[in-house]
C-alpha cells in the first residue's frame, strides 16, 4: 500500500536548495550575459508639480544607454504606456480611483514616485546618471496621515473632493436602534499604524527580447505571473502569445508583490525590446520602503450595545483607511476589515461604514493579513472592553458571542471582498477556545501573576480570536503529465514565494495518483506551462491550486485506469494504483500488473521508437488496424487538466494567547509564553502549516511591538532602512510557541482544506494589546506600542483621574 502523503509532515523538497544558497532569484538570472541595469529617479518630495526635467547631463555619459521620462512614453513605441497604470480591482463605490503613471506626468504624489528611468552598463553607472538628472518642482502642500486627509484642508488629487477615494456602508439589521435599546453601551476609538511586507528580496524584473522571433521573456519577482503577462502584453502593444512571464525563486512576497504591474515591470521589458539587450532592475532596500507599498494604517470608532452577559446586541463601526497616494488595488483592504472584523462572533445587528482616503504617502496594497489585523484589533479590543465594564472574564464574554458549531453555514448578511456573500462554511469556536484556555494556562494565570508580583514583576495575559476568509476565487488550474519514465510533472499557474508548494502539491498529487512522492515534480508561476491562473494571495494557494491539482490528477488517473484495464484485460473498477503500479485490487505485484510508465507509452501511439520501451507503442505493435490510432474522443499522452472554481471563500479561524512581562521601571515588553490554536481544516503538511504560523507570529510581533512607517509632516519616510525600521530579530521572537490544531474540514473543496498563509499575523496587535492592558491596568487603544509609548501612557494614566470608558446603564 502506498503511504498516504496527505497529512504527513514531509520535509520540504525546496529546502536543500534554499539552505545551501542555491536559490535562484531575479538578480541571479542571466548573469554573465551582458545584462544592462536600470535605476529610477524617484521623487524626493511628497507633493509637487514637475515644472521641468533636464536630462541633458546624462545623455553623454559613457555607459548610459537610455533615459526616459514621461514624455518618452507617449510615442508610437507603446501606444498605452502614457496612460495611468491599471486600476486592478474596480468597485462601484470606488468613485474616485486613481493610479499613477509608469513615470510621473506633471505631478508627484509621494516620496519615491518614479520620475525617470535610466538604463546603463551597470547599476553604479545608472545611479550616477540618475544623480545628474535635474528636476524643477513647484511645491504643493503634502497631506500626511488620516487626520490631515479627513480635514481635507489640502487635496492630494485636485479632482478628488475631501480626499475620499471611496465610501462604503454595509449593514445587517438596525445596529443603531439595537445600541439605543441595549442595557449597556461603550464607545471606543482605536488606531493601527502603517507597516509593510518588507520581504528580504525586494522587487526585481529581468527581460529579454528575442528579435528573431519577436518574443519577450520576462522574469519577475511577483505573486502573479499571469497578471504581469497580461499587463505587459497590453501596455507594450503585443499579442499575449509573444510574451512569457516566468517567476524565479521569490525571496518573500507577503502581499506586496501581488500588486502589478509595477512601473519597472513595464519599463524593463520595453527597454529590452527597444535596446534589443537584456535589461534588469533590482530594487534596493531604500527603494522598497518608498516605492513599493505599505498597509495597515486605519483609525476606527466603535459604538457597541450589549446585555448583562456581554452579548453584543448592536455594533456600529466607522473607520478611515489611509490608502496612500493611489488605489491600484481598489478598496479590497477596507472591505476585508469591515467584514472580517466580525471574527467568530454574531452581533445582533451590525453596521459598518468606511472612507478610503488619499494621502501623499506610498500607496497601500495587501500585506499578509490584509485588513484583518485591524479588524481583529477592533473587535477584540471591544470584547475586552465589554468584559472590563461588566467585570467578567474575557473568555466568558467571547463565549457568549460565538457562532455555535450547529449554526454553520453561517451567513452574516454582508458582501465579502470577492463580491460573494460573507458565509462561513465551518468551524468549532467553543472547542478552539477550550483548547487555548488549556494551552496558555488561563486558569492558572492569577496564581502566576501573584507569584511574579511578589518578586516585583508585572505580567499580563491576553487573547484574540479571528476568522479568515481564505481561498478566494475566481479559479486556479493544474496540468498533470505522466511521462514514460513514470514520473509525474505538475504545473499550476500561481506563484511561489517560499510556501513549500513543491512539497505540499506533490503530496496531493502522489495520493490522488497512487505514485511515490519522490516521482512528482511541481512547477509554479510559469506562463509557458500553465497560462491560466490568478495568483498567490489571500491564503489561497493550497485551497485553489491544491484542489485543482487533486482534480487534474484524478482525471489523469481515470485515463491511466482505462488504458491499463485494456492492457490487463480487467475491469477499471477492479484496478488500483500502488507505488506507480497498476494491478487488480488485492494482488499487488501479481502477474496482472503494469507500471505507470508503460501506460504512458501505450497512451501515445508512435511512428518512431526512441528506446526499447517505446517500441511497444509503435504502429505495427499496438492498436486495432481497423480504427484510428487515437480515438475520436481521446487524446494522445497521459495527461490530466482541470480547474477549481469555488462558490465562495472558505473560512479558517484561530485563537492566540500571550503572557507578557512589562518592566515596571523601563517599560520594556517581554514575551513569556505564546500559544496558538489553529483551524485551517484538513492539514496537507502539518510541518509547513506550523512554519506558516511561526513565521506569521514573528511578523506579527514585529507589527505589534517594533515596526512602523515613520512619516514626518512633510511626507518623508524617516526610517526607510533596516536600521530604523525595526524588523524583529530572532532574539525578539519567543523561543517556544505552543501550537494546537483543530481540523474542521471545509465542505467547499474536495480536500476539506482552508488557507493558512496569513493566519499567524492576524491577531498579533489584538493579542499584545490585550496582554499589555492586562499587565498595566489601562486599555491600550493604539498599536504598535514601544516601551517609550508605554512609558508615556503610564504617565498619562498616573496623572489623570482613572478614565472610565463611557458606561451607561
Amino acid at each position, binding site marked *: 500500500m502506498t503511504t498516504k502523503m496527505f497529512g504527513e509532515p514531509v520535509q520540504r523538497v525546496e529546502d536543500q536548495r534554499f539552505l545551501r544558497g542555491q536559490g535562484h532569484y531575479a538578480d541571479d538570472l542571466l548573469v554573465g550575459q551582458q545584462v544592462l541595469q536600470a535605476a529610477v529617479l524617484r521623487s524626493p518630495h511628497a507633493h509637487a508639480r514637475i515644472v521641468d526635467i533636464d536630462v541633458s547631463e546624462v545623455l553623454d555619459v559613457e555607459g548610459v544607454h537610455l533615459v526616459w521620462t514621461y514624455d518618452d512614453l507617449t510615442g508610437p513605441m507603446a501606444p498605452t504606456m502614457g496612460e495611468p497604470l491599471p486600476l486592478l480591482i474596480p468597485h462601484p463605490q470606488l468613485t474616485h480611483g486613481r493610479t499613477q503613471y509608469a513615470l510621473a506626468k506633471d505631478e508627484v504624489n509621494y516620496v519615491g514616485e518614479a520620475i525617470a528611468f535610466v538604463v546603463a552598463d551597470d*547599476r*553604479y553607472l545608472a*545611479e*550616477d546618471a540618475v*544623480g545628474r538628472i535635474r528636476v524643477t518642482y513647484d511645491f504643493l502642500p503634502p497631506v500626511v496621515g488620516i487626520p490631515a486627509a479627513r480635514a481635507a484642508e489640502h487635496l492630494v488629487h485636485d479632482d478628488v473632493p475631501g480626499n475620499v477615494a471611496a465610501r462604503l456602508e454595509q449593514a445587517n439589521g438596525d445596529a443603531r436602534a439595537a445600541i439605543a435599546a441595549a442595557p449597556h453601551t461603550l464607545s471606543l476609538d482605536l488606531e493601527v499604524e502603517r507597516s509593510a511586507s518588507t520581504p528580504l528580496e525586494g522587487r526585481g524584473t529581468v527581460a529579454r527580447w528575442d528579435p528573431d522571433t519577436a518574443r519577450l521573456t520576462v522574469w519577475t519577482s511577483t505573486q502573479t505571473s499571469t497578471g504581469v503577462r497580461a499587463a505587459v502584453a497590453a501596455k507594450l502593444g503585443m499579442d499575449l502569445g509573444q510574451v512569457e512571464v516566468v517567476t524565479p525563486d521569490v525571496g518573500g512576497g507577503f502581499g506586496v508583490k501581488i500588486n502589478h504591474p509595477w512601473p519597472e515591470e513595464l519599463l524593463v521589458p520595453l527597454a529590452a525590446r527597444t535596446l534589443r539587450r537584456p535589461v534588469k532592475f533590482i530594487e*534596493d*532596500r*531604500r527603494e522598497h520602503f518608498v516605492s513599493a507599498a505599505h498597509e495597515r494604517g486605519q483609525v476606527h470608532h466603535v459604538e457597541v450595545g450589549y446585555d448583562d452577559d456581554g452579548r453584543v446586541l448592536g455594533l456600529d463601526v466607522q473607520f478611515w483607511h489611509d490608502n496612500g497616494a493611489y488605489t491600484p488595488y481598489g478598496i479590497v483592504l477596507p472591505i476585508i476589515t469591515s467584514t472580517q472584523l466580525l471574527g467568530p462572533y454574531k452581533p445582533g445587528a451590525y453596521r459598518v461604514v468606511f472612507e478610503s482616503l488619499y494621502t501623499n504617502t506610498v500607496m497601500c496594497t495587501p500585506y499578509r493579513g490584509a485588513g484583518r489585523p485591524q479588524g481583529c484589533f477592533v473587535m477584540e479590543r471591544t470584547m475586552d472592553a465589554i468584559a472590563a465594564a461588566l467585570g467578567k472574564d474575557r473568555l466568558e464574554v467571547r463565549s457568549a458571542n460565538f457562532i455555535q458549531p450547529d449554526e454553520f453555514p453561517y451567513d452574516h448578511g454582508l458582501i465579502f471582498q470577492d463580491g460573494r456573500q460573507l458565509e462561513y462554511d465551518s468551524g468549532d469556536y467553543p472547542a478552539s477556545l477550550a483548547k487555548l484556555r488549556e494551552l496558555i494556562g488561563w486558569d492558572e494565570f492569577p496564581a502566576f501573576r501573584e507569584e511574579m508580583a511578589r518578586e516585583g514583576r508585572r505580567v499580563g495575559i491576553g487573547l484574540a480570536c479571528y476568522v479568515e476568509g481564505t481561498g478566494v476565487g475566481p479559479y486556479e488550474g493544474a496540468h498533470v503529465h505522466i511521462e514514460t519514465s513514470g514520473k509525474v510533472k505538475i504545473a499550476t499557474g500561481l506563484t511561489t514565494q517560499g510556501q513549500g508548494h513543491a512539497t505540499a502539491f506533490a503530496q496531493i498529487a502522489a495520493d490522488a495518483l497512487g505514485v511515490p512522492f519522490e516521482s512528482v515534480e511541481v512547477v509554479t508561476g510559469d506562463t509557458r506551462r500553465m497560462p491560466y491562473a490568478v495568483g498567490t494571495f489571500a491564503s489561497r494557494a493550497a485551497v485553489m491550486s491544491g484542489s485543482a491539482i487533486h482534480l487534474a490528477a484524478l482525471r489523469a488517473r481515470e485515463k491511466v485506469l482505462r488504458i491499463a484495464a485494456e492492457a490487463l484485460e480487467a475491469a477499471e473498477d477492479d484496478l488500483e494504483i500502488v507505488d506507480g503500479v497498476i494491478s487488480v485490487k488485492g494482488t499487488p505485484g501479481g502477474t496482472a500488473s503494469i507500471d505507470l510508465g508503460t501506460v504512458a507509452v501505450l497512451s501515445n501511439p508512435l511512428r518512431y521508437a526512441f528506446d526499447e520501451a517505446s517500441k511497444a507503442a509503435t504502429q505495427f505493435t499496438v492498436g486495432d488496424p481497423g480504427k484510428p490510432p487515437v480515438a475520436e474522443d481521446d487524446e494522445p499522452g497521459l495527461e490530466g487538466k482541470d480547474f477549481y472554481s469555488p462558490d465562495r471563500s472558505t473560512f479558517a479561524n484561530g485563537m492566540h494567547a500571550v503572557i507578557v512581562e512589562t518592566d515596571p*521601571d*523601563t*517599560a*520594556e515588553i517581554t514575551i513569556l509564553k505564546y500559544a496558538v490554536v489553529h483551524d485551517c481544516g484538513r492539514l496537507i503538511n502539518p510541518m509547513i502549516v506550523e512554519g506558516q504560523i511561526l513565521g506569521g507570529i514573528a511578523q506579527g510581533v514585529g507589527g505589534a511591538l*517594533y515596526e*512602523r512607517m*515613520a512619516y514626518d509632516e512633510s511626507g518623508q519616510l*524617516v*526610517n526607510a*532602512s533596516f536600521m*530604523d525600521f*525595526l524588523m*524583529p*530579530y530572532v*532574539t*525578539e521572537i519567543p523561543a517556544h510557541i505552543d501550537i494546537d490544531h483543530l481540523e474542521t474540514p471545509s465542505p467547499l473543496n474536495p480536500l476539506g482544506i482552508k488557507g493558512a498563509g496569513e493566519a499567524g499575523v492576524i491577531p498579533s496587535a489584538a493579542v499584545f494589546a490585550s496582554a499589555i492592558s492586562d499587565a498595566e491596568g489601562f486599555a491600550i487603544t493604539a498599536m504598535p506600542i*514601544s*516601551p*517609550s509609548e508605554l*512609558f*508615556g501612557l503610564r*504617565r498619562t494614566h498616573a496623572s489623570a483621574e482613572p478614565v472610565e470608558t463611557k458606561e451607561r446603564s
Partner: protein
Amino acid sequence: MKPAPFAYLRPQGLQHALEALAADPGAKVLAGGQSLVPLLSMRLAAPSTLVDINALPGLDRVWADDDGVHVGALARHADVLASPDVRRVQPLVSQALSQVAHATIRNRGTTVGSIVHADAAAEMPMVITLLGGSVTVASTAGERTIPAEELYAGPLESTLRHDEVAVHATFPALAPGEGVGFAEVARRHGDYALVGVGAVVRIDGDDVVSARAGYLSVSDVPTVVDLTETWGDHDAAAHRALSALDPADDIHATAAYRAHLVRVLTARVLAAAYDDARTRASAGRDRDDG
C-alpha cells in the same frame, strides 16, 4: 544603493598608507567598514580615495600590560571580546563590547574604528572616555597620543586630522578597589542603545571614594559625569547626570523616556559597579588571606 566612484588603495605598509592620506584631503581610511560602507552605499559619503588599511602588518594585536588593555587598529570587536586578558585587566571593555551590534558585525568591525568614528550612540567611545584612555595616531609627521577627553569635537567628529590613522587605543587597567557596571536599553538586541550607562565605582572598605558614569545616546559627544558626591541618593545622581546630558526625541523614544532611562539605568549600574567592587575586594582579600 551603490557607492559613487572612488579610488581604492590597499597599501602594504603604514608609511604608504600615511603618504596616501597626506596626498589626498578627500581620502578616507577603511578598516572594518561597518559604518563607512553603508554610508558609501547610501551615497551619504563620497570620498575621493579609500585607503584600505587591512593589509597593514602588526595592527591586529590585542594585548594587556600593567598600563591596561591595548587594542590595535585592525583588531576586530570579536577579537577583543574573546580576550581573557582584556576581561581580567579591564572588564568594562568586555561588558560593553558584548552589547556592540551582532556577532557578524563584531567579526568585521574594529574597536579602534568605532572609537574614532566618534558616534555618541556607540559603546566604545563612551567606554574609553569613562576609563580615561587614549588613542595613538600616526601621520607622515610622526606619532602622537590623544587622551580620550580630547578625542571628541562634536557629533561624529573626532580630533584626528584627515591625514592621521589611529594605530592603537589604550584602556587603563581596573585599579584596586574599583568595580564596573554597564547596562543599556535598546529597541532590539544589538541595536544602538536608546540609553546606555557605564560606571566605575571605587571603594575603600565600605566607603565609596569615587563614582563616575558614562552615557550613550543622550548627548552629542561621549559624556562622563562624576557622581561621587551624590552617592546613595538616586534622585540627586539622576539630576546631576541629566544636567550634563541632552536627551532628545527621535522616532524610537521621547526625550522624557530617555531621561527616565537615565534615572533607572544610573541607579542600576552604580549598584552593579558597587557590588562588583565589593566582590573584587573580597576576592582580593581571600587571595591575600590564602
